[in-house]
């Protein structure tokens, strides 16, 4: 018998480089190696997460577009367009302008001629066709009236709609129920969207936690030995958390890129009616959505791994 090491003959060299190397080996290399080894068992979780994150990304983009619409509508709701008769005289128009400018509820009045109205219409999807079909300029001149308070728009409308210069058929843009309907719709969209996102998040967390449970089970012996020889808790749990982050990050990256491509496709179709409904969409918004989906994947993956490890790895 050669004897057993009682006091080590090797001096301890506390080399930071060795520590970095060991941490990298245990946490990163170990996690990547095991992730690749367990890919077959992780694949369903990876697929589910990718799909869920993609849905979340698209719902998020849609939500952002609706939010942009709401912002625009809120801003526009305090602007009253007062449409003028084509045969209104200059005196009648001046009289109306004077009346509007004298109103204390109004902050500004801007005249839009028929030519300017036509030019604006040409920038809107579908309206150039209407302009061409009519053979002339069907758009009336108008006053764009900025009302100080949203609540006073109805009062200003009542005051001007019977003026001599105002078109009797379609006097103003005032629609008392439009803003309320939009707000109600957005509220419901927010509620349904949030519930949907919560459901997706719950499913993603459950799926990932289950895949981590499978990973822990497959490495039960290694984990047991690590625990019994006194490996620090972070060293035992860390690789599983990183495995979860890799799963979530991969799913997030794929879903984020698909979200980016879909959003950019919509943005590139600049004249489409969809973009008109979703004016907030841009390349920056698409990149932001991609980044958010990737980040969500990382957070959900590592977070659900922490939960799974906490639940299935006992000291």
């Amino acid at each position: 018998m050669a004897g057993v090491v009682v006091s080590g003959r090797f001096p301890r060299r506390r080399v930071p480089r060795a520590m970095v190397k060991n941490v990298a080996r245990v946490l990163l290399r170990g996690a990547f190696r095991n992730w690749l080894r367990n890919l077959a068992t992780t694949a369903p979780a990876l697929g589910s997460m990718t799909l869920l994150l993609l849905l979340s990304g698209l719902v998020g983009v849609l939500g952002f577009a609706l939010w942009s619409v709401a912002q625009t509508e809120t801003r526009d709701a305090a602007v009253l367009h007062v449409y003028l008769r084509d045969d209104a005289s200059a005196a009648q128009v001046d009289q109306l302008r004077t009346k509007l400018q004298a109103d204390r509820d109004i902050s500004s009045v801007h005249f839009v001629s028929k030519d300017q109205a036509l030019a604006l219409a040409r920038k809107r999807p579908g309206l150039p066709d209407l302009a061409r079909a009519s053979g002339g300029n069907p758009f009336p001149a108008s006053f764009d009236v900025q009302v100080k308070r949203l609540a006073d728009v109805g009062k200003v409308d009542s005051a001007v709609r019977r003026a001599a210069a105002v078109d009797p058929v379609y006097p103003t843009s005032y629609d008392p129920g439009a803003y309320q309907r939009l707000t109600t719709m957005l509220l419901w969209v927010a509620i349904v969207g949030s519930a949907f996102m919560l459901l997706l998040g719950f499913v993603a967390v459950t799926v990932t936690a289950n895949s981590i449970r499978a990973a822990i089970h497959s490495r039960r012996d290694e984990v047991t030995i690590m625990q019994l020889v006194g490996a620090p808790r972070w060293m035992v749990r860390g690789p599983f958390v990183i495995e979860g982050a890799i799963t979530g990050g991969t799913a997030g990256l794929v879903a984020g890129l698909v979200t980016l491509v879909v959003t950019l496709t919509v943005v590139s179709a600049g004249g489409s009616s969809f973009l008109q409904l979703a004016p907030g969409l841009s390349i920056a918004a698409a990149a932001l959505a991609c980044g958010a989906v990737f980040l969500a994947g990382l957070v959900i993956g590592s977070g659900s791994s922490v939960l799974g490890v906490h639940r299935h790895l006992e000291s």
Partner: protein
Amino acid sequence: MTPSLESKGLQPLVEFAGVSRRYGEITALEQVSFTLTRGEFAFLVGPSGAGKTTLLKLINREIRPSDGEVWVDAIAAHDLPATKVPELRRHVGVVFQDYKLLPRLTVLENVAFALQVTDLMITDQEAHDRALDALEAVGLGERSGAFPAELSGGQQQRVAIARAVVTQPPLLIADEPTGNLDMETAWQIMDLLDDIASFGTAILLATHNVDIVTKMQRRILTLVDGHLVRDQPAGRTGKMAWLAWS
């Protein structure tokens, strides 16, 4: 039941003070008290279900006692938070009946693994050298590149012992380490453990092997139905051994 170690100037390495452990309605250990000193080799015997494994698990803080105190190398295992458990386990080497070697790692890597996961400052070269040193100590230096499946049961148990002592813990606990081995191999393992104890590592070994327990003439702790019924000092075996029972 146990002599006062403090009065002899000895610091106990392991101390059980009125320890009970219950699993629901079942009592696995009841008011067990004993101490183990540094370098002491003791057997833990008793019929199946007597509480031997429970006692070993209490030392390694795999479980907590329902009552009483468990001290291991001045660490209060009975009151240890989960975050501090790894610290305790670095003081305790563990050997199992089924070896628990990692099949994908070589023998050397299995031993080095214990060093690398407990000491982040250790270099690859140092881990390699120390693991090889431990393997040579158990007579397996020549097989360091082999995988566990390529070794016999006795050789695998030697690797497990090398892994348990490579971090130089003051205490080694072994749960039926010869349970899967033939008598000749079992004696080789016992010689190895005896050698380890002679270098100052305390050993507490749970076993059913009466032949080994009788011939080794070491201290014997006997558990029956969770009660420590005998604490027989070392060297007191034979027909008149009962005279030494405390």
